[in-house]
């Protein structure tokens, strides 16, 4: 076994390398700070491995373009920030509805609107969940280290392929631009998942028929299956329907298909939670400050722990509820005006006190601010 060298790389670069390691061979994007490095790296690396990069005329086109590529059987990625992610929303909904695997890296910057192009933020948490219209399934993963940018992008590609859903990798500007020493895994140690191809002959293929897995088999365009893809409600043949019973059947399956795989999808980290009296719930770069705060408070004899959701959507609700039952209070520091807090409050409010520490002015939340908040709650 060869041992990879330690390297000093950026979160954005780790995302790009993770995507390629996971088998991504198609990228479409449009430049926007603070995500642009991902497009730049993909433009350099993909043609070297026979993959394709295209800089589209806008982010709507970029999102549509990767969905087209995905239909031919390729693993696909796009990356953007702020305004660009807003533009992608309609096509993300199409991907949810037509169940087209794709990964969207969102390196969050401070909004709304053009906001702060180079400012860090965590203001797109609710957009990731509900940004496109209508009820729809979505997965969002949130790295806190450069190494995790790599690992979670690999996971995101695997989840997209396995569950046929759009998957977000939600960085914040700090994580995207931060450089850390990493040792990336060897190719042979990386788990790769491919979408399920049809087990039937073209004539018998019903593109949206599922077994108990709830995930339909997907034919590559150009392989003779001649199937129809639409954003309209459709039955298992893939053709439009307005029959309420069939619409409901489709929607029920879409809305429950990820539930079946929660054990696999829900990822989180617990730090010093065993005897904690106060629990900090933090994610992304804020979790790094939170971890520092936990260490300092522990040194001072204060029993505080960290719950870090790595999968933000669907939210690891049961894990948090278990912990919340044994603490006095939960604190949610986040770089927005209280987005994930809404979810945490919903889960914890019957079990303990909840409070938020919100800051969205382009500066990170510091360990000292978190420490002060913990002391206030205690």
């Amino acid at each position: 076994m060869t041992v990879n060298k330690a390297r000093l790389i950026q979160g954005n670069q780790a995302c790009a390398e993770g995507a390629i390691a996971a088998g991504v061979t198609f990228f479409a994007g449009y430049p926007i700070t603070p995500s642009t490095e991902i497009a730049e790296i993909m433009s350099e690396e993909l043609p070297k491995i026979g993959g394709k990069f295209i800089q589209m005329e806008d982010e709507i086109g970029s999102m549509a373009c990767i969905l087209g590529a995905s239909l031919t059987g390729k693993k696909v990625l796009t990356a953007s920030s702020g305004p660009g992610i807003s533009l992608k929303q309609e096509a993300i909904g199409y991907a949810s509805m037509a169940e087209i695997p794709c990964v969207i890296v969102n390196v969050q910057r401070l909004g709304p609107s053009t906001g702060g192009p180079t400012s860090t933020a965590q203001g797109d948490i609710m957009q990731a969940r509900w940004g496109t219209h209508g009820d729809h399934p979505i997965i969002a993963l949130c790295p806190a280290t450069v190494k995790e940018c790599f690992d979670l992008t690999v996971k995101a590609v695997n989840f997209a392929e396995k569950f046929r859903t759009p998957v977000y990798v939600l960085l914040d500007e700090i994580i995207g631009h931060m450089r850390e020493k990493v040792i990336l895994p060897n190719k042979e140690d990386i788990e790769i998942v491919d979408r399920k191809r049809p087990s039937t002959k073209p004539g018998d293929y019903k593109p949206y028929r599922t077994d108990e897995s709830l995930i339909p088999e997907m034919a590559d365009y150009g392989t003779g299956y001649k199937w129809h893809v639409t954003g309209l409600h459709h039955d298992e043949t893939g053709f439009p329907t307005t029959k309420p019973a069939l619409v409901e059947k489709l929607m029920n399956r879409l809305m429950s298909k990820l539930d079946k795989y929660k054990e696999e999808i829900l990822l989180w980290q617990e730090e010093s939670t065993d005897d904690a009296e106060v629990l900090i719930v933090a994610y992304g770069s804020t979790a790094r400050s939170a971890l520092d705060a936990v260490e300092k408070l522990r040194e001072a004899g204060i029993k505080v722990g960290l719950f870090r959701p790595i999968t933000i959507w669907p939210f690891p609700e049961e894990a948090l509820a278990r912990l919340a039952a044994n603490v006095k209070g939960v604190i949610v520091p986040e770089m927005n005006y209280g987005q994930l807090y809404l979810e945490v409050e919903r889960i914890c409010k019957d079990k303990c006190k909840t409070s938020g520490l919100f800051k969205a002015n382009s500066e990170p939340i510091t360990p000292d601010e978190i420490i002060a908040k913990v002391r206030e709650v205690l």
Partner: protein
Amino acid sequence: MRPDLQELFRMEKLPHIWCPGCGHGIIMRAIAEAIKESGIDMDKTVIVSGIGCSSRAPGYMNFDTCHTIHGRALAFATGIKLANPELNVFVITGDGDATAIGGNHFIHAARRNIDLNVILFNNNIYGMTGGQYSPLTPTGSKATTSPYGNVERNFDIPTLAIAAGASYVGRGTAYHDKLLKDLIIAGINNKGFSLIEAISMCPTSFGRRNKLGNAAKMLELQKTAAINVKAAQKLPPEKLEGKFLIGELHNKPAPEFTEEYDKLIAKLRKEAEQ
């Protein structure tokens, strides 16, 4: 339907949703005839559309088909073609779909000269939403959102496509359906961005409101107002007033995007080997 064309359709999905007298069905048939006559591999052919009455056509056609979102068919098609250049990719789109909401993708797909066969069904109106004015509704014409007559000016679609970089451009009509088929075949044979404007008619939402008569009258209008580009060359300008050109309007081969990209890949491979 002609028996030899049936394999190109999903017969069980017919009849279609279009209104009586709509021109879209004639254009859809011309596309099927062109595909059949061109002899391309139907298993390797993808038809992509946006949203609109015209964009419903792929649902009836027996290929890999993708009914996407409003205005974005060309962006989806760009992804399909670039990801797998082996595929023959057709785009069916409306005047609103292609030149209003999708105008940006339209000019950029043409600029790249990516090998797509675009058939733009121009019925001069937003049909699907019940007759609002489009960038192709003639100035002065009535629509539900131009009740006093359209104040805006129009695009000339072929001129737009040529200026943007399309390598093959033609225009046919539902009346001139044989010409339309031939133009689509020529577009298929062109390695690059081919734009065929197909003049359709919408008696329900455009003709009625503008007192153009029934579908037959509207077809007749296409017959009398259209003039073949070859014939037009011999006529003085005053004879061309009120007419529009049909036929092959532009044929200028140019480097095709996906081929150029593949050359880049080959070059990088070679450099890596050395």
